[in-house]
């Protein structure tokens, strides 16, 4: 029976719950010192002076490093960085290279001391004086100065600008509303941490809480002018990332500190630093308009986003889903991006779709009400089976089945369209739903598989398990591909010295590395077969390779299973201690889908050579249903249950997949009801500083979540058939909840999160 798909528990679960899984901050080194950063207390300006000499005399202090004495990193150079695979820096600000302050909380110095406490005490005492400039700290104030970026991640950013007005005016029915979403922070359970160890001046090891060991290695190598193979990044376990664990400045900062101290140095960020130094999801103000004919067929969709950026080109792409969902002859998607002197926005779980589906899917609900049409039926009526902009078929798409199955499982039929019809004691009860979607990503990856003569298999790739289950599902894929039990498979990941794999971002790890793992196993089996059939001592001697089957650790002749031989016997007789194979997959279609390479080095295929992207659009879809209970006296909203039906291709492990969707839904509940970082409008600093202020759902906020997978493999994404699953679970959730609040109360709340005061202000 196939191991793939089985709901087996995490193979690393026992290590995690027994404290044996080693995270970045736990890689203590002999003679290690500790670093504590000093952060800017103004939003914009220059450092005028600092009392670093006084602090050098503090107890235990080894070094105080600032722009005055920091190691000179290679300067920013986007062309050179692209070439080196080092372009994807969290913010384009190599640390401590000059005295300019770009946002409150920016690292302006780092203190290195014998103990963490000494470093912290000295860092707190370091007096820094600034000359402050007038800073841009509020989105609404800065919007008049915003610009319209042409591109976002290689795609046109402004689509059909100005073209929606005519069709909107001509539509029989229309809605046009403004929705807003706040700043959100990722706050993975494990705070960011790095231990930097130099060997001489040309070899660096970083034990780093990262979503990409290869990325971190390339960026560190670039800025320190090292060969990439001399920068080893190790991250066997990472306690969540959600987009915040790309490469941020503390990783370079600690390498600078370790160089200056000439010792291994550890730097662990505090929660307060995680509010300013590792990115956030930017606030958005989104205006969504749509028009239909009298029968409810969409004529036009318009989605405009106001947001901001700082220190990178990234901005929150909240119009993304509006280019993918629903059949409408015209859609206009535009952005205005202001500059704020605020810490740098970045990717956060379903960047774009999380705030974007809130706006679009609430507007869809408002439109359905205007048409007096059931929101599920309105969506089905406007469903599209093709990418509505590019015209390509979706590679695999069962969205209507998601709606129907979700409605059935949730009991949608018992919903009253009319608001305020259902009560439970003092609560008003409402049902709401929304569409979920996220792109199906895929990148080049290499995987090496090694089998030894004890029957153990090792699967190796420089991928990462950020809590998603990478270890577990890789073991399942290899177990099936080799016909050995999962327990015999050892997965080695999280080390940049292993064969390259993409960073754990964009929901692409499974889709990228599993085809390579499968191919490496096929190559390994081929070698076993060729050894066996050539060996006069083997029962398989003389057979044709295509006649050989495999199962239970054996090769056998198909149709004559008595003629079989164990892998161990084959290896032992050949006097081989081990054999290995490596495969690389490139994201191209058809026969060229996987390209075996003995060198284990993928090269990214340029999109224009990627034939199936010209043929298919790769997207996952889902439907989210929520029941809320609202206490109108207090404006408190509680989610009572959620049904989430997902079309994400093949399910590799029903248990870890379900956990991913549950996690996404909980993230969505947080976004809907409580998560928000607030900034002081005078000084620009975050007032929400810790997890006491930044509320995420507690257990009691998390209701029963019914997760159902369509489970149909995607025949075009890879021979494995799985698309990613890490991000889609959050999309649509906040809209489903806000739509349920309307159904319960008759109040449209269009500004997240839906905290009690919003209820009274609306």
């Amino acid at each position, binding site marked *: 029976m196939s191991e793939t798909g089985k709901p087996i528990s995490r193979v690393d679960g026992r290590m995690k719950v027994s404290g044996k899984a080693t995270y970045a901050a736990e890689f203590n080194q002999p003679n290690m010192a500790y670093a504590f950063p000093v952060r800017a*207390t103004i939003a914009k300006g220059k450092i005028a002076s600092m009392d670093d000499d006084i602090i050098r005399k503090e*107890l235990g202090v080894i070094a105080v490093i600032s722009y005055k004495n920091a190691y000179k990193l290679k300067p920013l150079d986007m062309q050179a960085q692209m070439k080196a695979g080092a372009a994807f820096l969290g913010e384009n600000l190599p640390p401590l290279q000059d005295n300019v302050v770009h946002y409150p909380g920016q690292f302006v110095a780092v203190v290195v001391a014998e103990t963490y*406490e000494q470093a*912290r*005490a000295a860092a*707190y005492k370091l007096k820094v004086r600034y000359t402050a400039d007038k800073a841009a700290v509020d989105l609404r104030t800065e919007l008049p100065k915003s610009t319209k970026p042409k591109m976002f991640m290689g795609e046109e950013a402004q689509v059909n600008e100005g073209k929606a007005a005519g069709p909107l005016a001509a539509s029989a029915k229309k809605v046009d509303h403004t929705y807003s979403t706040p700043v959100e922070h990722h706050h993975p359970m494990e705070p960011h941490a790095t231990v930097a160890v130099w060997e001489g001046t040309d070899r660096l090891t970083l034990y780093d809480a990262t979503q990409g060991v290869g990325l971190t290695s390339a960026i560190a190598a670039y800025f320190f002018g090292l060969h990439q193979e001399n920068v080893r990044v190790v991250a066997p376990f990472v306690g969540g990332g959600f987009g915040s664990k790309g490469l941020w400045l503390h990783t370079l900062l600690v390498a600078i500190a370790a160089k200056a101290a000439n010792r291994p140095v550890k730097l662990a960020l505090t929660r*307060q630093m995680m509010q300013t130094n590792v990115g956030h999801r930017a606030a958005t103000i989104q205006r969504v308009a749509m028009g239909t004919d009298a029968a409810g067929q969409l004529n036009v969709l318009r989605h405009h986003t106001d947001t901001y950026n700082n220190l990178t080109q990234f901005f929150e792409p909240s119009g993304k889903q509006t280019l993918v969902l629903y059949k409408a002859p015209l859609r206009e998607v535009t952005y205005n991006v202001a500059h704020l002197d605020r810490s740098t926005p970045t990717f956060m779980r379903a960047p774009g779709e999380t705030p974007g589906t809130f706006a679009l899917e609430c507007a869809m609900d408002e439109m359905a009400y205007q048409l007096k049409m059931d929101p599920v039926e309105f969506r089905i009526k406007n469903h599209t089976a093709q990418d509505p902009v590019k015209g390509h078929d979706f590679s695999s798409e069962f969205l209507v089945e998601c709606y129907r199955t979700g409605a059935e499982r949730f009991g949608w039929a018992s919903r009253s369209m009319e608001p305020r019809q259902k009560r*439970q004691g003092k*609560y008003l009860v409402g049902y709401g739903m929304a569409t979920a979607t996220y792109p199906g990503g895929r990148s080049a990856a290499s995987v090496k598989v090694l089998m030894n003569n004890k029957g153990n298999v090792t699967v190796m790739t420089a991928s990462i398990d950020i809590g998603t289950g990478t270890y577990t599902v890789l073991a399942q894929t290899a177990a099936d591909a080799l016909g050995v039990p999962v327990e015999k498979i050892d997965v080695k990941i999280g080390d940049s010295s292993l064969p390259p794999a993409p960073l754990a971002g964009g929901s692409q790890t499974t889709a990228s590395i599993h085809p390579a793992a499968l191919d490496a196993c096929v190559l390994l089996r081929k070698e076993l077969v060729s050894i066996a059939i050539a060996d006069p001592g083997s029962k398989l001697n003389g057979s044709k390779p295509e006649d050989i089957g495999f199962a239970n650790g054996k090769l056998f002749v198909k149709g004559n299973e008595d003629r079989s031989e164990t892998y161990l016997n084959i290896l032992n007789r050949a006097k081989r201690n081990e054999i290995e194979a490596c495969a690389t997959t490139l994201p191209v279609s058809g026969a060229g889908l996987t390209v075996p390479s003995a060198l284990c080095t993928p090269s990214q295929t340029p999109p224009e050579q990627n034939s199936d992207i010209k043929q298919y659009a790769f997207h996952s879809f889902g439907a989210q249903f929520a029941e809320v*209970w609202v*206490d109108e*006296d*207090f*404006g*408190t909203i*509680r989610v*009572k*249950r959620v049904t989430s039906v997902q079309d994400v291709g093949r399910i590799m492990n029903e248990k870890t997949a379900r956990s991913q969707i549950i996690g996404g839904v909980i993230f969505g509940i947080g976004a809907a*009801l*409580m998560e928000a970082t*607030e*900034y*002081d*409008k*005078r*000084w620009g*600093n975050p*007032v*929400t*500083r*810790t997890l*006491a*202020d930044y*509320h995420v*759902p*507690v*257990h*009691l*906020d998390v*209701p*029963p979540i019914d997760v159902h997978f369509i489970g149909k493999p995607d025949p075009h994404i890879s021979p494995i058939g799985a698309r990613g699953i890490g991000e889609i679970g959050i999309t649509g959730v906040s809209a489903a909840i806000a739509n349920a609040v309307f159904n319960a109360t008759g109040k449209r709340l269009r500004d997240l999160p839906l*905290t*009690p*005061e919003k209820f*009274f*202000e609306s």
Partner: protein
Amino acid sequence: MRPFKYANASNPAAAIKIVTADPAARFLGGGTNLVDLMKEDVMHPSQLMDVTRLKFSVIEKKANGLSIGGTASNAVTANHDLVRENYPLLSMAILAGASAQIRNMATNAGNLNQRTRCTYFYDANMPCNKREPGTGCGALHGVNKNHAILGWSEKCVATYPSDMAVALAALNAVVQVEGSGNTKRNIPFADFHRLPGEHPEIDNTLKHGELITSIDLPENRLAEKSYYLKVRERSSYAFALISVAAALETNGNRIKDVRIALGGVAHKPWRARIAEQWLRGKEPTQANFRAAASAELKHAKPLGQNKYKVGLAAKAIVRALEGAMQGGTYGAMEADSTTTNQN
């Protein structure tokens, strides 16, 4: 965190003497707030005198009520039979606060001494008259949706964060303290915490070096009609937007005694004496509860972002009094949560 000395007190008089002699010394209970403040560089005690092993953790009956020890944990206090039977309001209030882990560590005396959760107070780079007198109040014209609507001053708009203290205010508790030279005094709860006025840096009327040895709860006939209501942004582990400790004693269909205290509205637990006065002798009807609540909140002065609290507080007072009349139950603090008892 700056370097500091730590000592474990074995003798109250000696511990009090040491702390009294050093203006920068502090008593240490569970440390659930003080240690955070030290890590945040907000407080820099020269030494910590750990009092958790002193024999002040007893909960016992006294002639006219109950005495709960200063170093008894919040968890033990909330779950003590004598407290549950005679002062369910206190039990409910404690259990509405913090998390199980924090309640296990936190002491009763420490709970009364905790500092505001105003984030301007916690951020050592922000102005805050409570942390650094003379620097101004960051919240007055800043992010203040969780701040005070009653009794604030231009110097400080912070609220007092404790749930336990709101119940103690309603219960007319008396704080027993011991100072140097074996001096003992008691402080009526209403006089324990103070409004900010010109000196928000002073939270309460304890003198430096005075140690809370116990909290006395006078006898009452309120146990059957008590209710603690807490409205917050999530179902648990969040400070109150508004909380209400309500307790009633009725005589026939008339209110004989009524206690109402509010949390989340002021620099101290706010005893709603105007509302109490209005209700005494009247019938316990919803209309009367509403009128009493609005009489109390007529004096509210909301800030830029917390106008919602005025209406919310009025509704919470009514709901809490109704809950008390129905004979509040354990778990009542989850009344704002729809996630219990269903599914």
